[in-house]
C-alpha cells in the first residue's frame, strides 16, 4: 500500500495504481502510434494570431473584494491573476520558437531525471508510474521541438538537470526521490502557466495548454504516493487560499523554471 495519511481511507492502492499505470501505458503506446498525426493537427491546425503578450500583465491588477491566494510566501489578491483591463498593454516577448526550445529542454531534463531516479524508486507501482511519466515527458519534448523551428537542441536543460541530479543523488530513500519528482511536476505545470503569458502563436499556446494539465495530474499521483494531503491551509494566515498540497486553489507561475536562470544548452 502506498503511504497514506494516518486515519485516512486510501484513495489509491498500490495494486490500483499498478493497474491504472498499466492501462495508461497501453494508451501511451497507442498514443505514440498516432502521435505524428495528432501533433500535426495540434501544430498545424491553425496559424498564429499575431497577438502579443506580456507575462507581467498576468500579475497586475486592482483589488477585487479582498479575495486572495498565496504565491510563494506572498499573499496576493486574486485580481493579480487578471490584467487590469482587457487588451490594455501590448508587449513583445521572446519568439515562440525560443520558448518552445526551452520547454523541450525542460521536458528532456525531466526524462533524464526520471531515468536517474529509477534506481531509487523501489515500490513497483511507483517505479511504473515514474516510467510512464517519463514517457509522457519524452512526448512533450518531441511536440515542443516540432514547434521550435530548429531552435530545439535535443538536449536536457543543463542547469536544471544539474540541480535535479544533485538532489536525486542526495535523496536517501524513495520518499525523498518522489518529493523531487513531485516538485519537478509542479515546476513544469507552473512553467507552462508562465509560458502561456509569453507565447503568441496559437498552436504553441494550445500545445502548452494540453500539456499543463498532464503535468498537474502527474503531481497529483505523486502527491498521493507521498501521502500528502490534497490541500493544507497555511497556519496563521488570514488568507483562506494560502497553503500547500497537490490540489491548490489555482495553478500559478510561482514555481516556474525561469528560462533566464535555466538557459537551454549552448546559451549559458
Amino acid at each position, binding site marked *: 500500500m502506498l503511504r497514506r495519511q494516518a486515519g485516512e*481511507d486510501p*484513495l*489509491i492502492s498500490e495494486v490500483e495504481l499498478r493497474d*491504472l499505470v498499466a492501462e*495508461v501505458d497501453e494508451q*501511451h503506446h497507442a498514443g505514440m502510434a498516432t502521435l505524428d498525426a495528432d501533433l500535426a493537427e*495540434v501544430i498545424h491546425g491553425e496559424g498564429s494570431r499575431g497577438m*502579443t*503578450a*506580456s507575462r*507581467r500583465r498576468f500579475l*497586475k491588477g*486592482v483589488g477585487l473584494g479582498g*479575495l486572495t*491566494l498565496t504565491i510563494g510566501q*506572498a499573499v*496576493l489578491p486574486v*485580481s493579480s*491573476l*487578471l*490584467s487590469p*483591463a482587457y*487588451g490594455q*498593454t501590448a*508587449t*513583445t516577448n521572446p519568439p515562440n520558437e525560443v520558448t518552445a526550445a526551452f520547454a523541450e529542454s525542460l521536458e528532456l531534463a525531466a526524462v533524464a531525471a526520471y531515468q536517474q531516479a529509477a534506481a531509487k524508486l523501489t515500490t513497483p507501482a511507483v517505479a511504473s508510474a515514474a516510467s*510512464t511519466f517519463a*514517457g509522457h515527458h519524452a*512526448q512533450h519534448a518531441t511536440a515542443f521541438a516540432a514547434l521550435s523551428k530548429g531552435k530545439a537542441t535535443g538536449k536536457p536543460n543543463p542547469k536544471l538537470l544539474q*540541480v*535535479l541530479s544533485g538532489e536525486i543523488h542526495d535523496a536517501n530513500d524513495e520518499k525523498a526521490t518522489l518529493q523531487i519528482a513531485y*516538485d519537478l511536476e*509542479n*515546476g513544469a505545470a507552473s512553467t507552462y*502557466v508562465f509560458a*502561456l*503569458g509569453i*507565447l*503568441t502563436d*496559437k*498552436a504553441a*499556446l*494550445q500545445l502548452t*495548454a*494540453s500539456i*499543463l*494539465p*498532464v503535468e*498537474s*495530474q*502527474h503531481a497529483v499521483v505523486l502527491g*498521493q504516493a507521498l501521502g500528502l494531503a490534497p490541500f493544507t491551509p497555511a497556519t496563521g494566515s488570514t488568507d*483562506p487560499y494560502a497553503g500547500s498540497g497537490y490540489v*491548490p486553489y*489555482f*495553478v500559478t507561475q510561482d*514555481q*516556474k*523554471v525561469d528560462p*533566464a536562470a535555466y538557459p537551454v544548452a549552448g546559451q549559458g
Partner: protein
Amino acid sequence: MSDEHTHDHSHAFDRRRLFQVGGLAAAAAGLAACINGKGSTGDTTTTTSTTLASKTDMTSMRTASSIEALLVQAYQKILDANLVTTPAVLEQVKLFQLQHKAHLTFFEAATKRGSGPVFSDPNPALVQQISQQLAGLGSEHDALQLLYNLEKQATATYQSNVGNLSDPTLNQAVMSVGGAEARHVAALAPTVGQQPVPGAFASTDGAVAPGTGGL
C-alpha cells in the same frame, strides 16, 4: 529546487504588488517601469493602449463562471444528499467545492474587469443536461462519477479557450483554473475506476462552447 526557481523573481513579485493596488493608469505606468527597469531578458518592449474587452472574451468568461456555479451547485446537492461517506473522499469533495467557489469569484471578477455583465448562475443548458442524472443519484460511486465528468468538462473547456481569447493574459487566467480542475479529475479518477493521467496530452473533447446556455 523550488526555492531556487522562485528566488530569482521574488523582487519582481514585490514590484508587481506595488502597482496591484493602484488604478489602471498607475498599473499601466507601473508595468512599463517594471519591465523596463528589470530588463532581465533584453528582448522585451512595451507599448500601451486601451481597448475594450472583446465580446468573445466576455462570453468565455461568463460561460466559465456559469460552469463554476454549476459545479458549486452539483457538489452542494451531493453533499446535502449525504451520498459520499468515505471520509477522505468526503473531505476532498468539500475542498473541491470550496475551490470552485473561488473559481466562480475569479471568473466573475474577470468578467467585471472587462466591463461585461457578470453571470453568476449555473449554466442553464448544462443544468438541464444533468438535472435528471443529479436527481437519480443513488450511491457514492454515482455521485463521484458525475463530479468526475463535470470536472473533465470544465478542464476541457478552459483548455479549449486557450488561443481563442483576444486578451492573451486570459490564457493564463483560464489555465490557472484549468490546471486546478485537471487535478480534481486526477484525484477523483481512482474513485470511479478511471486513470488519473489518461495520456500525454489533455484533450478538449467535451468542452463547453462559449455562449452555451444563451450567455
